[in-house]
Each structure stands twice: as C-alpha cells, then as structure tokens.
C-alpha cells in the first residue's frame, strides 16, 4: 500500500533548490533547454548504454569504476574532484551522477531532488520534452486539493499492516488475501471503487468480499487483525472443492480467487482465448505459447493458452543437483527453474500426431514460452512430487531474486530496446511449513521498502535476508514500471 503514490504534490516544493528554480524559470526557453538536457543526460547515463562514459579527460586512470558526474551543460564527464574545477572554469552548475542518476547542484554543493524533473525520468528514451510534458500525471496542486477535499484521507497509522485472523485452517486464504492486499494495482482498483459493492447483486460475490477487505484495511486505523469471514463464506459457497473445514492448497486458492474476481467484473469475457478487456484479465492473465516441432518434417504447431501463473518444476533442478550436474553445493535457483521450464523438451513417439506428416505419430520437441506477461506474476515452485505410490514434499531452499528480468523466457528473448519493461520486483513470498497434507502457510510481503512477515494475525517486521532465505512455495512478482508495460 505504501507503494501507491503516497507522495502528495501539496507537500512537494516547486523546485529542488533555489538554483534550479532560477534555471528553469529563466526567460527565453532556457528552462526548456535545461529540461531537455536533463532528459538527454538521464538517458545517456542509463545502464547498458555504453559509450557515453568512455574515457574522457583521463577519467579512466583514476577511479574508473567510481561514480562520475556528467555536466548538463556540455555533456562532459568528471570525477568528484574535477567537477569543481570545471564548474569554476565554465560556470556550469548542474551535473548528473552516473550511478543513481541524481542531480548534483554545484552551488548547493549537494544532491538535489526536484519533483518536476523526477517526473521527466519516467518518459521513454525516445520521447522528447513535448511528449514528457503531456499530462501523464496531474501537474498542479489544485487538482490534488480538489481530490483531497472530496475524498477520504488515509490515516497515518501503519497503513494496511494488519494481520488476518486464522478462522480455523484458513491460512491458505489468509496468505493469498494478504498478498493481494499489498498489491498497489489492486489497491488502486478496489479503492477507486472498481468493484461497486453497493450495486453488485450477485449473491455471495467474491469481489464484494475482497473489496470489503480492501476497504477495511485502508480506511480504519485499527491495528488488530481482520477476519475475512465473508470471503471465506463466498469462497465456500462458490466452490464445492474448497468448501469445508479443512486445509487447502494456497496455489489452488489463488487460481480460484483470480478466476472469481475476473468473473465478478463488468464487461469480462469468459472465453479467455478471445482476449478480454477487463481489468483483472489485464492484471492477472498472461499467455503461454506452446510450440511443438515435429522432428521429422519440422512442422511447427503453436497453441497459445491463457495463464495465471507459472508452475515451475523444482524436481528437475533437485535431481540435477543430486547427480552433480550443476555443482554439488549450488542451491537450485528460480532462474534455473524458469530455464528448464522454457527449454525444449522431447516428446516420446506416440504422444504427438503431426499434421505435416499426414497425421502419423511422430517424435517431436515441445517448448513453452511466455507470450504475454501479466502485471502480477505468480510463480509456483512445485515442491510436491506425486508418483504412483507416494506423494512427497521437497523441502529445501530455492534461491529467488528480489527482482527478475523475464525477457529471456518470452517468445522474443532477443528483443532489443527497453529491458525495463520486463523487470519484475518481488512483492510477496508464501511459505509452506509442514507436511504435504497438513501444515501451515505464512507470507512475507513487501510494504514500501520494508518486509513484513504475516503469520495469520501475527505481524512482525523482518530483514530482507530472512525473506530471501525462506523456503518459498509461491512467489509473487510485480511489474516494475506499469508505464512501460509491454503492450503486445
């Protein structure tokens, strides 16, 4: 919740410092020129764009890895010490630091953070100043004053950091609901009255129950837990397999909830194959392309299916490790799982009938690739192995990163251009403790910069390292930049 723009324009200064103010408000287009050079420098210093920083002024001799400062006036690059002499010589006062791309004002002798300029950053590389100036955000504080006087204000108390009471074997529900409650996109939807509970006539509507939880989490400053009773009732009524006082799989519940939320929206299309314009479809559903190549004639059959999550096999990884394939000490990694998920797989003869070879059974190669990525990406690490005789749970750690680039696993892994459209950040990790048929779920959620452990109604703050060393079962990743979302 904290990640939903909690910064208000009313509390922002017009300019980062007095010197920026004089620079931008100058007469005769100097302000616009300054902004343009800001964007230009910002893009030139983008990671992965080499070349801009190549050896100049003997920078490489001393501290070639250290942060450098690029002059906004003449695009020259300086180290920390040289910058001052350059400023004295030329009177150029503004520099951009190469690592975090923050603006340095030589007159202040300090980094400055200007909210107007910060917004220009989110513009895409090719866009010019005019494009950036299109009002993607509301620019004036008058608009905000209007919103503020016509909307309820959130209280300052730790927003949304509340537990969910275990109603009796309902931790599977709690972990999923807690995850959703921490998602900025869903918060915007539900708090923006996306699901209109007052006009909803559906009996035992799951959407209404979830909307109620969102409203309760955000409106009151209660610190104690919340009992998601209505959601439980709605879920039980909606699904006979989930109903009843018993433990459930959190992953199955997630799929159920997404499906029900999708069907609770106006204007949704039940047929996923045709595509659907509704909010939940865009948020949760991606597309998985499965292509089968006939080994004999090379004919490729492609099918595309909607997907809510990626179910990743960890067994392959574990076995490889056991055989010493990837090195004895290496723990399986998420990227390894994703690689084996998207790598070609031999199909046995008799499974696939090739239309190119006249419909006869052929050996073939099958490969899965992600065609379209959802904004909220759920990955399940299949820790359960079912063989003919036994089912068992695979314990142990699987390394997962705080942010992941999904580009290599898509249908177009070599796309050049903005990689940031495929970067996902970890938002929550669900952990299952216990045996296959009985156990307990708890979830780590990111709240702003902090990580919080939600063990039903027990809410504690945890360090990042604890999250990363958890034996995750479900991982939820959020698209980093919605503005740059792939629009395929």
């Amino acid at each position: 919740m904290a990640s939903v723009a909690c910064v208000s324009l009313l509390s922002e200064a017009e300019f980062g410092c007095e010197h920026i103010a004089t620079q931008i408000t100058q007469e005769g287009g100097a302000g616009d020129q300054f902004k343009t050079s800001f964007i230009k420098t910002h893009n030139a210093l983008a990671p992965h764009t080499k070349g801009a920083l190549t050896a100049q002024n003997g920078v490489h001799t001393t501290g070639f890895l250290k942060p450098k400062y690029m002059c906004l006036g003449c695009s020259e690059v300086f180290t920390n010490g040289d910058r001052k002499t350059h400023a004295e010589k030329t009177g150029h006062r503004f520099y951009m630091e190469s690592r975090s791309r923050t603006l340095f004002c030589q007159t202040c002798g300090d980094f400055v953070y200007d909210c107007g300029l910060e917004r220009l950053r989110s513009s895409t590389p090719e866009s010019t100043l005019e494009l950036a100036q299109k009002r993607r955000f509301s620019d004036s504080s008058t608009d905000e004053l209007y919103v503020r006087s016509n909307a309820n204000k959130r209280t300052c108390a730790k927003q949304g950091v509340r537990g969910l009471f275990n109603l009796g074997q309902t931790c599977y529900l709690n972990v999923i609901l807690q995850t959703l409650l921490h998602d900025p996109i869903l918060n915007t939807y539900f708090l923006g009255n996306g699901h209109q509970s007052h006009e909803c006539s559906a009996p035992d509507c799951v959407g209404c129950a979830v909307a109620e939880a969102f409203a309760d989490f955000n409106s009151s400053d209660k610190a104690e837990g919340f009992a998601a009773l209505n959601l439980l009732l709605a879920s039980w009524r909606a699904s006979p397999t989930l109903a009843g006082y018993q433990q459930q799989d959190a992953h199955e519940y997630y799929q159920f909830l997404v499906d029900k939320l999708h069907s609770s929206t106006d204007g949704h299309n039940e047929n996923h194959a045709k595509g659907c314009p509704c909010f939940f479809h865009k948020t949760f559903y991606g597309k998985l392309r499965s292509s089968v190549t006939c080994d004999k004639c090379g004919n490729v059959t492609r099918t595309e299916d909607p997907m809510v999550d990626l179910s990743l096999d960890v067994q392959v990884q574990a076995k490889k490790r056991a055989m010493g394939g990837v090195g004895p000490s290496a723990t399986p990694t998420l990227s390894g799982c994703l690689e084996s998920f998207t790598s070609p797989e031999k199909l046995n003869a008799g499974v696939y009938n090739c239309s190119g070879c006249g419909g006869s059974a052929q050996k073939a190669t099958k490969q899965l690739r992600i065609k379209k990525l959802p904004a909220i990406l759920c990955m399940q690490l299949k820790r359960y192995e079912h063989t003919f005789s036994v089912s068992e749970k695979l314990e142990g750690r699987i390394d997962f990163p705080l942010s992941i680039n999904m580009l290599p696993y898509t249908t177009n892994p070599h796309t050049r251009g903005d990689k940031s459209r495929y970067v996902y950040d970890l938002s929550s990790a669900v952990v299952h403790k216990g045996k296959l048929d009985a156990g307990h779920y708890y979830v780590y959620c990111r709240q702003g910069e902090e990580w919080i452990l939600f063990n039903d109604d027990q809410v504690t703050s945890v360090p990042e390292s604890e999250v990363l060393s958890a034996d995750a079962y479900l991982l939820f990743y959020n698209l980093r930049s919605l503005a740059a979302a792939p629009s395929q």
Partner: protein
Amino acid sequence: MGESNGTEQQESSFPSGTIAKLTCDILNNTFYNIIHDIVSKVHRDEKMARMRSAVTIARQKAEDEAARRREETGAKPTALKPGEDFEELKDIHVETDGAVFDEGKVFLKGNPLQTTKEIICPDCRLPRLLYPVTGVGARPPPDPYREYCQKQPMISKPGHDVHGNPFATDKLNPKKKKQTNTSNTPASSPPTTPDSSFKQAAPEKVSFPTVKCPNCPRYFVVTRVAQHLDRCLGLSGRQVNRNKTPMENGTSTPSSAPAKRPLDEDTPSTLPKKKKLGAPKKLSGKKPPPAPSSKLKNGVTPDMAAAADAAAAGDGDIKSETNGDN
C-alpha cells in the same frame, strides 16, 4: 558493478604487478560504490523528508495566515476544508526558515538539511517519531507531552507485532502466555508484574475477538468460526462428529431452545431485554442445545423462568454471545 571501460585497450606489454594493481583498484572502487550507493540512498530519503517537512511547515503557516486574515475581515472563522481556501492563499506571502510560500506555491530556501530539523508528516502535520517507542532500538519520544504522527517506525519485540501489541492468544490457556512474558523481561521487574516496566499502555494480553457467524446469529471466537461455519452450512456431514466440541456433542434434543439459557448465569438480569430486541427467526437444528443438566445444576431463577417462558412463547433461539467460545 562491473563496467570496466576502456582499460584493456592499451598495448599488451604490461609492467609487472599490473594485474595486482588492477584487482586492487577494482575492489577498492567496488567497495567505494557500495558505500556510495548506501549513503546516497539515505541522503535522498532524508533530504526528501526534510524538503517535505519544510514545505508542510510553510503551507501550514500560510494557512494560519489566511485564517487570521479571514478573521480580520470578519468572515466566519470556521476552518475551511483544504481546497476551498485555495483562492485565498494566492495572495499570501510567508517565509519560514526553510521555505517561501508565495502565490500558492512553496519554494525552498537554502538546503533543507540545514534549515529544517524536524520531520513533519505531510498528511497530519504532526512531527514524526524517528525511533520505535518500545522493543529493539527503542527511544523515548523527545517530548512526552507532544502529539506525534501515528506513523511510527516498526516495532520489533518478541511476542509483539509491529504495532507493539502482544499477539492474540486463546483464552483457554492464559498460563502459557504469562510464562513467555516473564521470560521476555528477565531483569526488569519481579515476575509477578512483568509488564509494568513498559511505559506504553499496551494491553498485557489480547485474546481473540469473537465474530458473528455470517450464516446464523451466533457469535464465536474468531479461530473457531470456520469450524462452526462448516457445520452451519451443512457442508461436511462426515466430519461433523469429529469436529464437534465436547459441549456440543452432548444431547441433541432438537429445536427446544430454552435449555440453552442457563449457561448465561453471569448476566441473568439482562436476558429478558435481549430477548426483545433479538428474536431472530432462524432456529437451526444443526446446533443442538447443550445438555439440560446444566440448567438443573444452576437452579431456575425467576429471570430464567421468564426467559424460558419467553423463549417458549416466541421462537426463541437467542444469540449466545456470552458463551461464544464453543
């Protein structure tokens, strides 16, 4: 970290020790960068917070000024909602240590890291506490008589959540909770009053609340409500017997409700009143009343007789919130 630009383009005749020097340089620079990034993040967070504080203070002052002017001109002195007085703020010019308010806009003055000392919450305009009030890293608030913003640093304290409240416990085993409490504060106080050392008025023990079943008018401890709901909805016939609490496993005389009342022995006088407002229609046969033996044990007071009569007259299954922990 590694953007090793343009060092290897020299000719191949390196003097001895080049690799060692290079390695050393890379390492040094990498450490420098790591520290640089950490410091720059902290700097950014702190400076932004101070900037916002400076702006908030200036805005507050401007609004006060606007209110003062309104009073002078004789308008109604009621505090207007933010937004309505925007026009009035236009021609106000105030200055604080850190910022200038001019024509509805706020401009910084000087470096907020120097000019502004306190972090002010932009929403409620109260100062923020920078340290938790209890638990790990706790510090007492700088001014105990001042009101602070509700947004405080997360509290980290064993057995307590981020708000500093103890975890809810089952009513049934209060002893266990007490033991953990004493072990948490070994040296601070005698074990009889383990929580007295904390200044915060946090409740010593929190028990799970009761919630109303969405399907029937009864109340249950929150941890048991799913179990009840299962039966209440008649979902799993097979499991009913296993899940029943001993009390409800008692005699299952159908429908004649009044036998339940005597359990509310601690509040007998309020019963007739409750009856009047209550009178829910649903009388679910799935919730068999508890054993009538308890009624005999307690004896029948006049109140209870009245209750029984009333219940018999109406279709009285009364809300049984007082014995909610079954």
